[in-house]
């Protein structure tokens, strides 16, 4: 009976029921059968207030909305073009770097494809890049940068891991540093592919000019310091992550509203609402998954799963392989925030028993999710690109295959070479 009910809820969820309601429904049915008063849902939903660094979520989300609503994407592309456009294949590299930086700040909400893709796709085609290649590049870059701070999924992973009993000491700051090399590896491999994949004819788009460099930097001089202030501040310990979030929002408010005047003061309430609806969507999933986790603990499911996995999977190597396949599929179906809040509490203890460092697990997890965004048939970036560029979804599938294989290669390196992620972690 319980199983039948749970399966029907899962089915309704796949038909489009709001995910947080489906999660809550499963927990409520479970608690009912475990003979526990359903008032328990209010207690466990409320537990979200104890999540460490919770306020970083609304703050960084709003910062991302400020950047998206301003002309910062144009300024960002102009600077990177001026610096790298002279290289053969330079524009492709420009696209990769600009997308990665933009996604790190705005999160993988599809904003990158919508805002930057619209700039870069025509530019790439005009510069002589093959149309399908250009399409694949902007689509697969839409989630590139998830591994760079202050990417929200990265922070969320840390937030959840910190709530758990973990055998090794870790901090969110560790996680933020750990993503740097793996993220750079992905960019480097994709850049290499962009140059080789064009069969030797990779045009440079503009000659190098000191004048353009200085002009573009001058234009973006208020935004360039932001990553430096933020990353420098966090890594040197000048401010904590929650403080960095506050500083970022206030800095961006001043810069975009009063310095660049890209955003009008009276636009702010609308922008706040939009951002907070997004935040609400994430937070209620986070909260309802606390209820579900609490049910799992009531019936001692984590222990059972743990025993089963450790009995049936022997080596860390096969564990990691199965983990990758599982997460890739999951990443294609589930949005990144739901995937993190549902899976991390279950995976973390199992991974730890195979000797996988929680920070390394976080990087593997996010790398998989990033690729999941472009995995056919339902990766979200594919739909966004299809919608944004007006191309049939099948053409998008074909255009991204090459990029996906390159990213899978990067994933293999990231998974089986823990040192790449852990080199800066004490």
């Amino acid at each position, binding site marked *: 009976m319980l199983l039948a009910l749970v399966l029907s809820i899962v089915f*309704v969820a*796949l*038909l*489009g*029921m*709001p*995910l*947080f*309601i489906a999660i*809550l*429904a499963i927990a*409520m049915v479970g608690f009912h059968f475990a003979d526990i008063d*359903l*008032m328990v*849902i*209010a*207690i466990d*939903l*409320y537990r*979200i*207030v*104890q999540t460490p660094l*919770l*306020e970083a979520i*609304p*703050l960084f989300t*709003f910062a991302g909305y400020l950047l998206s609503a301003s002309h910062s994407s144009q300024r960002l592309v102009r600077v990177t073009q001026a610096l790298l456009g002279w290289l053969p294949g330079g524009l492709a590299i420009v696209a990769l770097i600009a997308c990665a930086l933009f996604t790190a700040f705005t999160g993988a*909400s*599809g*904003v990158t494809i*919508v805002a930057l893709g619209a700039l870069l796709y025509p530019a790439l085609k005009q510069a002589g890049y093959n149309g399908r290649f250009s399409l694949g590049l902007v689509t697969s870059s839409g989630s590139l940068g998830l591994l760079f701070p202050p990417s929200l999924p990265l922070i969320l992973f840390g937030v959840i891991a910190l709530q758990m009993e973990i055998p090794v000491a870790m901090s969110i700051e560790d996680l933020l540093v750990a993503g740097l090399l793996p993220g750079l590896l992905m960019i480097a491999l994709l850049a290499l592919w962009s140059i080789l994949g064009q069969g030797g004819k990779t045009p440079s788009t503009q000659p190098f000019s000191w004048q353009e460099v200085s002009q573009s930097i001058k234009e973006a001089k208020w935004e360039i310091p932001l990553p430096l202030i933020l990353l420098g501040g966090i890594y040197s310990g000048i*401010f904590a992550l*929650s*403080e960095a*979030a*506050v*500083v970022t*929002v*206030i800095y961006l408010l001043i810069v975009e509203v009063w310095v660049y005047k890209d955003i009008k003061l009276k636009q*702010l309430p609308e922008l*706040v*609402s939009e*951002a*907070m*609806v*997004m*935040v*609400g*969507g994430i*937070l*209620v999933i986070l*909260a309802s998954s606390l209820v579900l986790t609490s049910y799992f603990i009531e019936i001692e499911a984590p222990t059972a799963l743990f025993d089963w996995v450790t009995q049936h999977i022997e080596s860390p190597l096969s564990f990691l392989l199965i983990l990758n396949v599982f997460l890739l599929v999951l990443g294609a*179906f*589930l*949005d990144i925030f*739901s995937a993190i809040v549902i899976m991390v509490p279950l995976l973390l203890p199992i991974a730890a028993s195979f000797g996988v460092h929680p920070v390394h697990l976080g990087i593997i997890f996010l790398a998989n999710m990033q690729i999941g965004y472009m995995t056919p048939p339902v990766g*979200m970036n594919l*739909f*966004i690109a299809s*919608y944004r560029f007006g191309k049939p979804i099948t053409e998008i599938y074909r255009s991204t295959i090459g990029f996906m294989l390159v990213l899978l290669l990067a994933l293999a390196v990231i998974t089986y070479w823990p040192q790449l992620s852990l080199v800066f972690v004490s």
Partner: protein
Amino acid sequence: MTLLFFSLLFIAALQIVLRNIFDSGLLWGDDFIQSVVLWIGFVGAMYASRNASHINIDVISRFLPAAFSAFVYRAVYGLTSIICAAAAFFSGQFVQLEMEDSVNAFLNVPIWVVEIIIPISFAVIGVRYLLLMFNPANAHHDGVNS
């Protein structure tokens, strides 16, 4: 919404200034921030229910023929509404229980005042989905949550 967000930003900024420059801080500041984030979450969820833009995984209905999927969505909205009603009922019951208690969330604000957003939010979301069931045209379900 704007008020909630900017009060969060203001108190969080004030805490930083007090801590780093004056080596002090508002004792209730962090409790206040936590409570505001809870409210932002549930008020935001209410907003999102206006046009059914909650994060979902409609992998099946996405590929259904239009005439059939309209029917499926009505059914899904109806079920959503029922679950919200149950959630509102049970969380409301708990908040009532909390009213007998004297614990404060921050300053002199009792904890139930903060918690009450949970049943309110579920009730509103439930009503919204009920309306959407009768009039699914107001929903946008393209699977893109941006």
